[in-house]
């Protein structure tokens, strides 16, 4: 398996479509995820991006890091913009005004743009059945505006709008399960991924691009700045999220669940929580609460995967 990884990395294109020189923070695992997604999709793609970190770091007029066609309009409407890009191209092809090149349509946004403000437009685009892939880069808060909580922020995490105080232990709500929300739309492909598992991520993006109809990939993207971890620990933290079962890697193809990175024995969640400054205030009771929930949800997922 070790050898396979050495070999597999050589199969990945050396070409960069999300070019170096962007302005993301050191150790940004979200920028890494964007780079991997761009590599997986190649040249034949049109990207619609939401406002957010990845838009801001990559498009300061008159510069761009995008070597593929890319459009940004606003924060909450990426899926609608992608719907128009896809619909417009489809009409032009059908009317003989453009050749059919099998272009992939990608919509992308952060967790705020996806699970909060853009959920309606995403749901609409899923329901209408546009042939597009939506990728959510989930760094679990509004990092671009300064680490405010979103509905994707995990229970117990301290952010600037869910601070750990004398009365409240940081975020008091549980992370919205966006993967399941996507599955509930009966779309042909849903997956989770993490930039700490690049081959798994790339395979899923390639598969999603091949599928006709809407596809959704939710990528956990470690944010050293917002999570209060050293930049050189981002990949390690992402691995711990998977190894503890906090963020399981799975895919749902036409309703059929499959865990793609199996973890036979989960590590304790404390291994994941402890190195992160955003969880430093958690009491053993709160950690137990999180452990109980993570174990239960992981078992539920496993049960679905073995059906």
């Amino acid at each position: 398996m070790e050898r396979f990884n050495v070999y597999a990395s050589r199969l990945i294109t050396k070409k960069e479509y999300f070019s170096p020189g962007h302005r993301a923070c050191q150790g940004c695992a979200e920028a890494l995820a964007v780079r991997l997604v761009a590599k997986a999709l190649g040249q034949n793609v049109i990207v619609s991006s939401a406002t957010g970190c990845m838009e801001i770091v990559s498009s300061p007029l008159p510069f761009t890091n995008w070597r593929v066609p890319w459009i940004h309009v606003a924060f909450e409407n990426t899926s609608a913009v992608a719907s128009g890009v896809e619909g417009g191209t489809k009409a032009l092809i059908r009317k003989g005004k453009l050749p059919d090149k099998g272009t992939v349509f990608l919509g992308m946004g952060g967790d705020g743009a996806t699970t909060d403000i853009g959920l309606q437009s995403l749901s609409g685009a899923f329901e209408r059945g546009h042939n597009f892939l939506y990728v959510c880069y989930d760094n679990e808060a509004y990092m671009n505006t300064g680490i405010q909580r979103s509905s994707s922020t995990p229970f117990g995490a301290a952010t600037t709008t869910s601070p750990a105080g004398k009365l409240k232990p940081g975020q008091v709500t549980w992370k919205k399960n966006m993967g399941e929300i996507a599955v509930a739309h009966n779309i042909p492909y849903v997956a989770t991924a993490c930039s700490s598992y690049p081959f798994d991520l790339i395979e899923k993006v390639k598969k999603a691009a091949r599928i006709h109809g809407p596809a959704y990939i939710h990528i956990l993207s470690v944010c050293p700045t917002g999570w209060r971890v050293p930049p050189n620990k981002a990949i390690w933290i992402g691995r711990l999220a998977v190894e503890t079962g906090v963020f399981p890697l799975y895919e749902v193809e036409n309703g059929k669940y499959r865990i793609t990175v199996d973890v036979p024995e989960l590590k304790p969640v404390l291994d994941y929580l402890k190195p992160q400054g955003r969880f430093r205030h958690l009491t053993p009771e709160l950690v137990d609460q999180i452990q109980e929930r993570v174990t239960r949800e992981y078992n539920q997922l496993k049960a679905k995967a073995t059906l």
Partner: protein
Amino acid sequence: MGERVGIEVSLAAAEAVKMANVDVVAAYPITPQTHIVEHLSELVADGELDAEFIPVESEHSAMSVCCGSSAVGARTFTCTSSQGLALMNEIVFIAPAMRLPIVMILANRSLSGPLSIWNDHTDVMSVRDCGWIQFFTENGQEAFDHVMFSFRVAEDPAVSLPIMMNMDGFVLTHVIEPIEFWDQETVKQYLPDFEPVNRLHPDNPVTMGAFGLLGIFTEAKMAQDQALLNSKAVILEAWKDMGDLVGRYYKPVETYHVEGAETVFLSMGSVGETVSLAVDQLRAQGKPVGQVKLRLWRPFPFEEFREAVRGVKQMIVIDRAITYGGVGGPVASEIRSFLYLEENMPTITNFLCGLAGRDVTVEDYMAMFEKTEQMVKGKVRQEDYIIYGVRE
């Protein structure tokens, strides 16, 4: 030339959109825009129009879809009213900055609250500064003709800006009028295929919608303002060519009996025809009264307007929207400031009327003239604006 048919104005507008061979229609239902969109969806369902009809889940998404489809070079149409315009407001401001030539019909309706579905101009005036080309239509024939005009002007490479065609809700959208259709050959002569300046396509990657820091923002806005001002030349050419083809010549500012007029009414949209009847009656009484109709609202037709009101002593500006706590209706306050530096600036009285579809009759306009005469003679205190017809 095409045939003359009796048809509801909304359906005629939809037929014109079909004749323009639009590629994408994205819309969300709102009264009184519905008949236009319903008819377009029928035309697509019957195969009479080959377009993607994208029934979005909100107006915000409607305008966002339009941005996406216009960016790939598809001829794009949408249509809304009132609350729909308010909901898509954010994207309405972004589309011209991205130079996306979307055509939108705004079936004018009052903004809530209280909720009302009826006609006035509170919706369009809320986006006065959005950067779109904006104009008003007065009757069904104008509406039909200006669909073709809108696509031609918006998509002209020298313009490449979105265009908003205002059409009064119900009083225009829902009435049946005799309308002379164009034949397809005339449309073909008048309206070339859409060739976008830039197109999102993998063969030639471009970045659209990059963000502007303070070092470039002002310059970008200046360029946008210039683009809107420059569009006027294309607008005038498009009107001239239309006149040569179909025999109807339109102008940015229309005048009616302004020869020797000391007082002129200023109107926009469908109330213009009623105002004309009032002018006829006042003229019959020997009063030197005329009328100026402002068709083009953005870019503002400075020269034409100045010319139209030259020598006029009094202006009665009809506003169909309120500027709460301000210096008058949006049209009047703008006209006042525009004419401020003119020699012999006319006295301007401002009547806010016809809100949410309240009928304003010929007699009402004559009463406004009477009131203006009294105010000017000093019998009544000059007021910045009068909300006309408030029930006591």
